[in-house]
């Protein structure tokens, strides 16, 4: 079936089977392999992308469901490698990854978390990562990265406020 999804701002139309999962649409049909397949059972969060600006697990959504919708993947965050998104930069600076497998999912869910709550406490950050598993870092550096990203993303708003 013909399926059109706007991915990272670009409308993409492919003819896919109805049973095609969004993760396979992104990775196999579009070649966007930044989004990873981990557990494949909606537990680990490695496949997290934004669907109409909300964090979702793309292994548990049909491409057909997303037809007509907007998807943002990790590839859609930075305009070029020299200008990373503040969350990406914070993961880099705070050593928020080791093997990197969970990282795209961690970053995508962080965007949803920080949109809801621009100043999360460490507890709130940990609660927000409930649906994402990391097997290397012990999470502490990921929490540090998200805290740092939150601080940096708040700075322009403060500057604009005049205080």
């Amino acid at each position: 079936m013909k399926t059109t999804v706007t991915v990272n701002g670009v409308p993409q139309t492919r003819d896919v089977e109805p049973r095609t999962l969004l993760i396979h649409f992104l990775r196999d049909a579009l070649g966007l392999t930044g989004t990873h397949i981990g557990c494949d059972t909606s537990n680990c969060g490695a496949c997290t992308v934004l669907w109409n600006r909300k964090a979702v697990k793309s292994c548990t959504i049909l491409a057909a469901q997303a037809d007509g919708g907007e998807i943002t993947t990790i590839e859609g965050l930075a305009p070029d490698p020299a200008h990373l998104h503040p969350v990406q930069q914070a993961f880099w600076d705070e050593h928020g990854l080791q093997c990197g497998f969970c990282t795209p999912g961690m970053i995508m869910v962080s965007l949803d978390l920080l949109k809801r709550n621009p100043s999360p406490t460490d507890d709130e950050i940990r609660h927000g990562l409930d649906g994402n598993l990391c097997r290397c870092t012990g999470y502490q550096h990921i929490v540090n990265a998200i805290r740092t990203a939150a601080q940096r993303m708040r700075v322009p708003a403060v500057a604009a406020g005049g205080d």
Partner: protein
Amino acid sequence: MIPAAFEYVRAHNLSEAVSLLAHHGDNAKLLAGGHSLLPMMKMRLAQPATLIDIGCVAELRGIRDDIGSIMIGALTTHDELTANAAVLSQAPLLAETASRVGDIQVRNVGTIGGSLAHADPAADYPAAVLALEATVHLRSAGGERAVAARDFFVDLMTTAARPDEILTHLRVPRRPPGQGWCYMKLPHPASGYAMVGLAALVTIEGGKCADARLAITGAGPKAVRLTKVEAALEGKALDDATIASAAQQAADGIDATDELYASATYKNHIAKVYAKRALAKAVERAR
């Protein structure tokens, strides 16, 4: 994991969804958020010939604060329930329950209608809607009917809804003055599903318990009310000793099942512990 092949059709409004369901019959399944159905299809535990996607049916969306009750559309996501002003003020038990479902990503997509229709014995909502004495509304080509929550959950993954019926919305009575609430669960450490989930509503009038409603999910094949605990509370002043003594009956009639991760004996014990804790919290909020 990839589901078995199926035909996909998208319904654009409720009458189209109803007629598609009537046309495709028993071989079709409705797809809302898909967060219960798609995992089963990926594991090939479900292999519907046709999926009718109702995710875009506007009539199934929305929350309305009516006289006497809150109307909650079937496509309301768990996340929407956690933040809706009417739900937070008039059915806070439901908001608290929704906040404990899955994780952010699951709550963004999963719907209350889908979860209720799926009737997973370890789902969170069944305990809450039983305690709230909510009504589930179903629509088919033959018309509309309302089913009380106590009659809706029939058995493991089985509800009173017929294969040609769509769950359109539920109605939850508005919270009476002096009613406290609590939903609390022991989640499975990997899946987050309730090994034992306790919903409690307590109404206090003149210092005494005027109405107590408790329900448990996760322990047995379906969620049930804890009528013995309720009876032990009604008319009493809700001090710690009364709560502790009533909670001792929380394992009565729950038909706890042995699982790989929790024996029936363990679940019976946890039911008593969580009944006590949930009651204490509900009483605190009622005061």
